């Protein structure tokens, strides 16, 4: 089981943002995709999930052997792909609990039993230190930045996808919230699941240790390595990567 990104070129409007990205996430692996602002990180996340604002002009996305490049977002989700949004949408009139139940049932033949759902929700809310009253609020309506991110990780925990893309889940979190969210992600780590953590900063990687680190600059992956690459980046900054790339090209 793996998520393969093959020579992916992506355009939004008239501008090409990704110029041939290759990346493979096997199940059981934790990958970090790092890059400065405007490098194309969120474009990659959104394209993986099938956001209609982004157009794939070349290349493929293959999930567990199946080409999903043209699939609708709901088909990708049902095939086992998940994204935690950087800026999740507000869903007025739909409570967190109802939304979760609807999402879980979307991927099932038989609707989940009320008791089973309740128990699972209780367990995951405890894990993420979420208050009970939270579940009756409309999803993301009036949520603080931290609450939104926790609600995303709660969905991840409930939906148990094969592959999860976390788009800047660490941004806007204070250190306590970051720790809670990281604990949630670590609890979800398993030999049966692959992760792609997309981030600008190395901060979250102090809590969630990646197996692989990829650096994306100007729509291309320019450097790859293990967890030590993130440490090096932390020390030297993205300018160092740019210089390395320039030196390599020369």
């Amino acid at each position, binding site marked *: 089981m793996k998520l393969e990104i093959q020579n992916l070129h992506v355009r939004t409007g008239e501008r090409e943002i990704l110029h041939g990205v290759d990346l493979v996430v096997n199940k059981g692996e934790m990958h970090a995709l790092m890059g400065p602002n405007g490098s194309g990180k969120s474009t990659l996340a959104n394209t993986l*999930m*099938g*956001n*209609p*604002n982004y157009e794939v002009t070349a290349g493929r996305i293959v999930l567990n052997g199946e080409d999903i490049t043209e699939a*609708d*977002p*709901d088909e*990708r*989700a*049902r095939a086992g792909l*998940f*994204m935690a*949004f950087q800026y*999740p*949408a*507000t*869903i*007025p*009139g*739909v409570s967190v609990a109802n*939304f979760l139940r*609807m*999402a879980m049932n*979307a*991927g099932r033949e038989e609707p989940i039993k009320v008791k089973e759902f309740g128990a699972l929700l209780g367990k995951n809310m405890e894990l993420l230190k979420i208050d009970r009253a939270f579940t009756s609020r*409309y999803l993301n309506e009036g949520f603080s930045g931290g609450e939104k991110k926790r609600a995303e990780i709660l*969905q991840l925990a409930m*939906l148990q996808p094969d592959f999860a893309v976390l788009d800047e889940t660490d941004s806007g979190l204070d250190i306590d919230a970051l720790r809670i969210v990281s604990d949630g992600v670590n609890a979800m780590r398993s030999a049966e699941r692959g992760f792609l953590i997309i981030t600008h900063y190395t901060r979250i990687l102090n809590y969630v240790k990646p197996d692989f680190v990829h650096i994306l600059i100007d729509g291309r992956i320019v450097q790859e390595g293990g967890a030590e690459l993130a440490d090096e980046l932390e020390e030297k900054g993205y300018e160092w990567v740019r210089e390395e790339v320039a030196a390599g090209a020369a």
Partner: protein
Amino acid sequence: MPLEPSPAQPVEDSASALVDDRRRAALEIYEAEPLPSWRRSGFWTTTLRGLDLDALEPKRYGPGLPELDLGDDERAALIVQRGASVVHTDLQDERIVVMPLEQAVVEHEQLVREHFAKRLPHDEGKFSAGTAAFWTGGVFIHVPKGVRLEKPIQVVWLIDEPGTAQWAHTLAIVGELAECRIREFFLGSDFEGQALHSGAFELYAHPGAQVDLAHYQDWGRGEVYDLSTRRVEIRRDARVKWVPIHLGGRLTRQTLDIITAEPGSDMKHTGLYFTEREEHLDLFTSDRHEAGHTTGDTVWKGALTGESRASYEGLIHIIPKASEVDTYLQTHSMLLSPKAKGDAIPSLIVEVDNVKASHGGTVGELDPDQIFYMMTRGVSRAEAVRVMVEGYFEEVVQRLEDPGLEELVRRRVAEKLHGAEDQVREFIGERAEAT
């Protein structure tokens, strides 16, 4: 606007004489007036050009209870008018009066004399005159002083044959400190051809009364023209919650007025509409404060599909002597099809200082980001649209506080959305490409 109460009639006039005099005066106006059209903000016009009025007639029926889905089988009373005839009356609670208005004119002389047409002048245009002149059957409701009803009073106006002209009048009187729920249903079968419902509704909430009022309109696919005026007068310390629901009709032109007439009166007005196909909905509502220390709260939400048109104009009017008023009005309209057109116009006339009044209006579309978000959780596009629209309406539906009726509204909205799925998909697709 001639909303002031008419001067009291001399006591010697019987209720029947009052009704008959009004009929005669109204008939003259009806015959003199041309077919009206309504213009708004320069580009919005409601005309009756498509209506063949001469081909319609008040159809009479014998007694019988047609099959109805009213969301709630528990009731204090049910009265059904089909075409021009009251065909069924079922009174379960002897403390109240629910009967044809024709009968009440004779049997409840004094109440009728004191209230009939007090807030409904017969000279507000061709169709209000027509209704005053031609109404038959009619509905009379009296909940006497101090009576508290648990179950609703249900009124049904049914049109199930093309060619029907239904001239309607409902008079509802809720006595001091009485409490009740009143639901009026406007139902049609999906016939082919034209019909007219020209209606008048008046409700008087006496001091301290608590009224929960709903109008549920679902004329179906028939070509029903609905031209109606509804007025609610709320007296001292009384409270009326009014929920009009519009789920269908070829052309609807309605004026809905709530008058908080004495200090301490309070109203909560929550409306909902869903238009489809070539339907045309033209609503004017007013929140009129005639006394100080009155409060109001108006929220309207609509959604449009097909090539439908919906215009909502809501006025807050606070007259000179009414200080210390606190009221607000919000209106939202959501376009679900590229060919639908809607507007939402809040307006304000405040003739006094020292009041709180605010208003706002929006016309929007489904947000493609929200649809995308839901789809990334495995929810299909059609389901996501349904959930978004239902969520959008939920605030209004919950204000019904009536599980049976709420369920009916949710189900009908879901059915209509299902019918419009292709258009909505196309629309969202277009929007996504445009961004």
